[in-house]
């Protein structure tokens, strides 16, 4: 877990350090949109580093689409004897 946390902290620091100058000059709207994406990244970081198993895109796709998608594939698959 420590390795994961250090790695993720490194990614965040790198991204923020390279954008610091641009962010200071950015509009309020720009800052908010930047913060929104960073918050999303923090959510997935918690999921990854702390093994929270939080809902993500694939969890959503699995719950909504797996049933119909599997039915389509099964209806087209040839049953082997």
């Amino acid at each position: 877990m420590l390795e994961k946390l250090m790695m993720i902290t490194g990614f965040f620091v790198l991204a923020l350090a390279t954008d610091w100058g641009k962010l200071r000059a950015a509009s309020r709207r720009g800052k908010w949109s930047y913060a929104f994406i960073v918050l999303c990244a923090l959510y997935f970081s918690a999921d990854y580093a702390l093994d929270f198993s939080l809902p993500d895109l694939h969890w959503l796709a699995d719950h909504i689409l797996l049933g119909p998608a599997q039915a389509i594939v099964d209806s087209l698959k040839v049953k082997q004897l």
Partner: protein
Amino acid sequence: MKQESIGVLQTAVLLFAFLSGSAIIVIPAPIIAYASNAAWLSILLSMTFGLALLAIILYLLRLYPSLSFIGICRATIGKWPTVIVACLMLTMAFHMATGIIIDVVAFMNSMMLPETPGYIFMCLMLVLSALLLRTGIESMARMFSILTVVVLFFWLVVIVLLFPSYHPEFLLPIFPDGIRPMILGGYLTSGFPYGEIVLFAVIIPFTRNVLAKPLSKALVIVMLLNGVMLIITTLGTIMILGPISTEKKYSLFVLAQTIEIGDMLERIEAIIGMSMIAGSLMKATITLFAIQTIMAELFGLQDHRLLSNPLCLLVQIMSLSMPTTMKEWENLVLVIHPLWVGAVYILPVLFIVTVAYFKRPARAAPA
């Protein structure tokens, strides 16, 4: 900020890179597993579907030549429905971007560098993507023109050098189990790569003259070229590996391993590995550029490059956190992906084009 623009040929090159990117190496094995010897017919089927989608997209962009894709959505279906459509498209676009990165990591770990941690490849790919995104679409198009020629050349070298090893008798019978497997293969490839062309509608408005006839001609030719490449690769895989084609992932790489001309030309699979990485980098960057453009327009930003780094950071962490096992990931790509593409890309674009078609006379009336 100055609006960037690219030429017709550059748009065509970007479409080729977007469609072929990782598909040339990733697609043959699963499609042969689904459709066996009729795999090439499945590609033909889905390519026809992709051409129809391209025609729809070009029709839509011609109705509103001065607007971006999100701008067209706003003009046709209104502000809030546009937000919903964009959010739906973003779910798939993020899945695509993470998928490309995960595929590269799986390829590198299983075929070339098994001891290296996956996040090293992810990090390097996304740092490159972030740099490319910051340089803008003009530089991207110029760089990808060179990379595409290199990828095409390496692919051609491998296909030609394999000539002595082909066994055309492996191609028969084409329909041992009827036509259902062919349709199943078509279902798979209509999601990846052909259904994904809807996301490219975000990139096409950057072309200098969207109304120019050579644009549609160039895009159709590129799509046919991509189809021919996929078909030749699939046929080559069947003709060389025969019944074991389905067991070998990354079949083009495996085919390159079998090349042996005399004692001097062998083990050239590394060039296919390089092509895979270059192709995936191009596709990932184009996908990220589309995500960046959609988000910048949704947030109403003038300078969309501000989002380059956080988006790459987000995709990096999503790639790290998403697949629990490779089997789960394959199930997601082979079973859910085509329906996901249909639900968030194809249905919304069909809805938008229908509304645009009925709104068209009202637009023309005041003139």
